């Protein structure tokens, strides 16, 4: 009960579904457990239960920060899953993901005339025999000047393809690990900011040496009003729900800011897909008819 109250204070706006996995302490018990220096009487996040715990000796932690003041306040520290945030980044996999994201939506609209589509050419230009000339049946054959093009591009040609799901997952894990290793990943308690002034966000990023491009990720697709208005007029600061998180956007933005709830959901999803029973079925060839 105390924990839920404390957490409600920590994350007032939305998402209570996963909060029970964060354990917190108040100042009274801080001396025993918490390595974090405290600011006032605010509750602190100190640890997190991780699903599928690892035994490889890797461990990653991140500060929980706030957004409700320009100056950074450390609200606690959370554990991050090593299989997501501590792997050796595979640059080749990140590139495969980026190339896939750039290409799968493209449709090639280039088209050239074939010999059937060029005007004319229906008549045999000259008789087959008796003239000493080469044999021709149409003046629009590909070997003729102003003839049709043989094997030219035909529109629309789709560039759609699907990366295997585990390549996509490894791309996400690699990028998240790289972002954390480069100090470009920040965890915040919520996206609530006190004003809808875009200058506030710019000042905050300047103060904390974020960005300039910042990607905020929350677990809901409805952002708090203030940050939505503030980020709307800044082209290089964007808000994204968890289900939109992707390698390309993470690379495009310098800094990635996750809320606690978003972190929870990202880990849950990635771990589920890497440990699900029907992984062999996931590896089957992607058919557009099966969507």
């Amino acid at each position, binding site marked *: 009960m105390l924990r839920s109250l404390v957490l409600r204070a920590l994350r007032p706006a939305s998402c209570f579904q996963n909060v029970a996995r964060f354990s917190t302490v108040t100042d009274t018990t801080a001396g025993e457990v918490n390595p974090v220096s405290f600011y006032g009487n605010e509750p602190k996040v100190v640890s997190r239960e991780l699903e599928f715990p690892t*035994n490889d000796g890797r461990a990653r932690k991140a500060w929980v920060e706030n957004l409700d003041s320009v100056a950074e306040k450390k609200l606690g520290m959370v554990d991050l899953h090593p299989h997501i945030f501590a792997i050796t980044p*595979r640059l080749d996999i990140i590139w495969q993901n980026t190339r896939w994201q750039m290409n799968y939506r493209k449709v090639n609209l280039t088209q050239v005339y074939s010999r059937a589509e060029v005007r004319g050419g229906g008549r045999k230009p000259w008789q087959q025999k008796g003239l000493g000339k080469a044999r021709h049946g149409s003046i629009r054959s590909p070997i003729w000047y102003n003839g049709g093009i043989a094997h030219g591009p035909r529109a629309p040609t789709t560039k759609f393809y699907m990366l295997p799901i585990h390549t996509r997952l490894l791309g996400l894990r690699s990028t998240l690990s790289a972002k954390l290793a480069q100090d470009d990943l920040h965890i915040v308690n919520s996206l609530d900011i006190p004003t809808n002034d875009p200058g506030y966000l710019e000042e905050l990023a300047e103060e904390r040496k974020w960005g300039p491009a910042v990607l905020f990720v929350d677990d809901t697709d409805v952002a708090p009003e203030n940050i939505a208005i503030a980020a709307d007029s800044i082209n290089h600061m964007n808000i994204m729900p968890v289900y939109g998180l992707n390698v390309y956007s993470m690379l495009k933005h310098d800094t990635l800011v996750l809320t606690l709830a978003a972190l929870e959901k990202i880990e849950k999803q990635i771990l589920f897909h890497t440990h699900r*029973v029907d992984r062999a079925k996931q590896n089957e060839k992607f058919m557009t008819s099966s969507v």
Partner: protein
Amino acid sequence: MATMKTLGLAFSAGAKCFRTRLGLDILNRSIPLVHCVSVRHKYKSSPLVSDDPGAYTGFEVSRNPEEWKYVQDLLPQPIIKDPAPKPEYPSGWRPQNPPADAPYFVKRTANHQLPVYMVRRGPRGQVLRTKVRYIQGDIWTLEEEIRAVLKQVYPRDVVQTQVNEVAGVIILRGDYVSAITEYLKSKGW
């Protein structure tokens, strides 16, 4: 029954045509369209074999959570669970018990198996490669150890290895899956 129904529909359609040909009013729906049930749900529209409930296997609906546990055991699990801890497993499988001082780490697969594979390539799969995956840390130490082990087990072989440090993969020329698996198992990986 379904066949009869289809026939009935056909018959009624035929009767309609007949009436049309005779110049009768089509809109006069005096034709008994009894069989207008869709034939798609055949089993639902089929008659019961017997009206006597005693002719069927008896069952009772239970909402007992104790009994539901046995049903749950039969349902497919969404996630690969950790195996129940036992002193010994009939298959010879052992849980990972990594040495404390090793400079490298070999991660088990999601199915709790050692990530040692044989890869067949080339024409008709004649080219054999052994692949060890999920190696974290000092991969070169593990490579030296594997070479030393294979030198003992196969003294006449020339073991050729390829190390991909970024991907954490060692590829060996030839089939050494058993030897490497046994070695890794003996070390507790």
